[in-house]
């Protein structure tokens, strides 16, 4: 070892390929992403891709299908029950989302005020969201029962009506009833998230506005609403997506009845694919939901995202 010449740097030991790769930022980044990408691929991309593919086949339960192109979609185009389910889904989504937003915002504004037992009320508000959907659906099933509805019973006791309300028997009443149940269940999500947004608004803005003589409505219109818009965009996007794809509530309450008046695209897709055995057609109905969902996401993204002026620039 004395042969090492003084003043000449010792050659660096040759590092292994793995060692070099493990220090490469790109490789490391890809490595860390891999598990998440694999999970997305297996549990999201593959089922979605399979669903889209099934929609182009005539697959039935227990029988592999063949590619039929757009045949399923052509059939659906002429299927009145499908179009009824599209109409129902739009009414259900728009009706429930508007109500959830209005009532949720109202509730958030109340909970943002100085209230006694504020923490308790905030916890209580979350209850409908915490209860499993099937349980709340069963509760509503009793509330809307044609013979044993507590609402009908109460109104009859008060002498306001003489026979039980046909909540789920009349098509329009059934639509309103399932929307009401969805609103009850969905309000907490909207209210609590908007409440979180409200608490990020600096009180000094309100103080300054008050000093300038702004009324309550002006403060809401010019401070609360603009500052809350980004949160509203996120909350309502999720709310619309959840509502549009709702299944359990309808399945428990009405199975899509009466006479398909409450069939949503999700419930019709299930009915045709699983109990009916026509997987291809069921998948096509599910795929037909995607443009609507994409439309909702795009609307929220372009329409309600943070404007430049909110970040100090011009709109």
């Amino acid at each position, binding site marked *: 070892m004395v042969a090492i010449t003084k003043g000449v740097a010792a050659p660096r030991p040759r590092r292994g390929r793995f060692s070099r790769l493990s220090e490469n930022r790109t490789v490391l980044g890809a490595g860390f992403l891999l598990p998440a990408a694999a999970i997305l691929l297996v549990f999201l991309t593959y089922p979605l891709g399979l669903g889209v593919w099934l929609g182009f086949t005539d697959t*039935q*339960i*227990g*029988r592999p299908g063949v590619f039929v192109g757009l045949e399923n979609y052509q*059939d659906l185009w002429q*299927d*009145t*029950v499908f179009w009824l389910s599209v109409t129902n889904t739009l009414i259900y989504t728009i009706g429930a989302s508007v109500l959830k937003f209005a009532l949720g915002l109202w509730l958030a504004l109340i909970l943002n005020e100085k209230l006694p037992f504020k923490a308790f009320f905030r916890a209580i508000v979350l209850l409908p969201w915490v209860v499993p959907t099937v349980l709340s659906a069963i509760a509503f099933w009793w509330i*809307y*029962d*044609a*013979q*044993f509805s507590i609402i009908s019973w109460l109104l009859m006791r008060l002498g306001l009506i003489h*026979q*039980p309300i*046909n*909540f*789920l*028997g009349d*098509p329009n009443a*059934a639509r309103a009833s399932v929307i009401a149940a969805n609103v009850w269940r969905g309000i907490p999500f909207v209210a609590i998230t908007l409440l979180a947004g409200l608490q990020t608004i600096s009180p000094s803005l309100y103080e300054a506005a008050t000093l300038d003589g702004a009324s309550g409505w002006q403060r809401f219109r010019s401070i609360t609403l603009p500052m809350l818009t980004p949160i509203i965009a996120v909350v309502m996007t999720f709310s619309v997506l959840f509502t549009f794809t709702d299944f359990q509530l309808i399945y428990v309450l*009405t*199975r*899509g*009845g*009466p*006479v*398909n008046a409450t069939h949503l695209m999700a419930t019709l897709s299930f*009915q*045709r694919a*699983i*109990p*009916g*055995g*026509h997987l291809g057609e069921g998948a096509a109905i599910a795929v037909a939901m995607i443009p609507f969902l994409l439309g909702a996401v795009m609307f929220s993204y372009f329409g309600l995202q943070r404007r430049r002026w909110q970040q100090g620039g011009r709109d």
Partner: protein
Amino acid sequence: MSFTRRDLVRGTAGLAVGAVGAKLLGGTPALADEVGIEPEKGASLRMTRWSPFIGAEEKQWLDNTKRFTAATGIEVRIDKESWEDIRPKAAVAANVGSGPDLMWVWFDDPQQYPDKLLDVTDLANELGVKHGGWYDGPKSYASSNNRFVGLPLATIGNAIIYRKSWVKDAGFSDFPKDTESFLELCKALQAKGHPVGFTHGHGVGDGNNYAHWLLWSHGGKMVDEGGNVTINSPETIEAINYAMALYKTFIPGTESWLDVNNNRAFLASQVSVIANGVSAYYAAKADPKLAELAADIGSTNMPVGKSGKDVELYQVTSAVIFKYTKYPKAAMAYLRFMFDKPQMDDWIKASSAYCCQTLKSYADNPIWTSDPVNRPYARASETLRVNGYAGPLGSASAGVMADYVLVDMFAEAVTGQRSPEQAAKRAEDRARRYYRA
């Protein structure tokens, strides 16, 4: 739930070994016999069944399973699913090739994936020869291309359940046997403040049973023998007109009824007549508070219409073995054991007339004569007509039923959304989507 020999020895062991052992010695066939069912060594089985409507029925099936385990050492785990979840879960198991070894399925499920089910023709023929033959209706549901792809296990009968005193008050000493007198009775009951109630909603069982009875009792049918859609016919229009007249005597809200609503309304004395399985009667009998009501319950078969025949849909359940099972012979041995006389007799009896035999020799079960309310359910397997009559069973018949085409046709007309002609035309259009191929 799984049962091992150890479980048997523990707890209720004395009972099982003592009382059951004697029966086993006399009644259990040798496991390897003429059809060569020799269970695989180390076999264990998993079976999924529908959640019971009659508790004693489930208990007896489990007791019979214990007997099987005691005799063979083969453990059988039995899982339960809500009866409406059976169809999707069986379909998924068949499609992915994984799940329980055996399953109780409904209606034409075996026709949807016959290739995924074990051919049990030899076993079925053996049981048929030994027990007087299979009834045609249940046999159709469990067969594909003249081969058994399952064993028809039971027919869940459906019959009129009514309040005897109210029918008498309405001026009828006997319950009417034909559709026209039945309508008169319903009008009279309505006038006395005791409306009737039949399901016009998306009730898988009650909704379909009622709609098919309306159609078939008037001579209508969804398709002909060749699978051509024939629902838009004068007979159907007549059936719809009859349904509209009958609907006027109903309690409000039946268009939203699912499967449990009629029982609930009947047990709460809100309605005087429903069509249901015998479970409505036994629910009343089991509740001391409803003793008076239970004593006032009568039952009879659905009235016969212009078709002149006593024909109904009924729910049929078959026991199938999936081809993917590792233990096909153990599964067949299990079914053969359960269909053998000691077990099947006890099970039918414990079912309290809810499960009607599919093998003719079991028709002498004492349960049918032990209570007059049970009697109308005794011939369910004999008088049932299969779904999609008069066409073939298959994906089209299953699809039409799952889409509630018939149920909706009547509901649209009785609620005034469509005229009888429009409702029949719409049902025709909807059915054609399934039968066009």
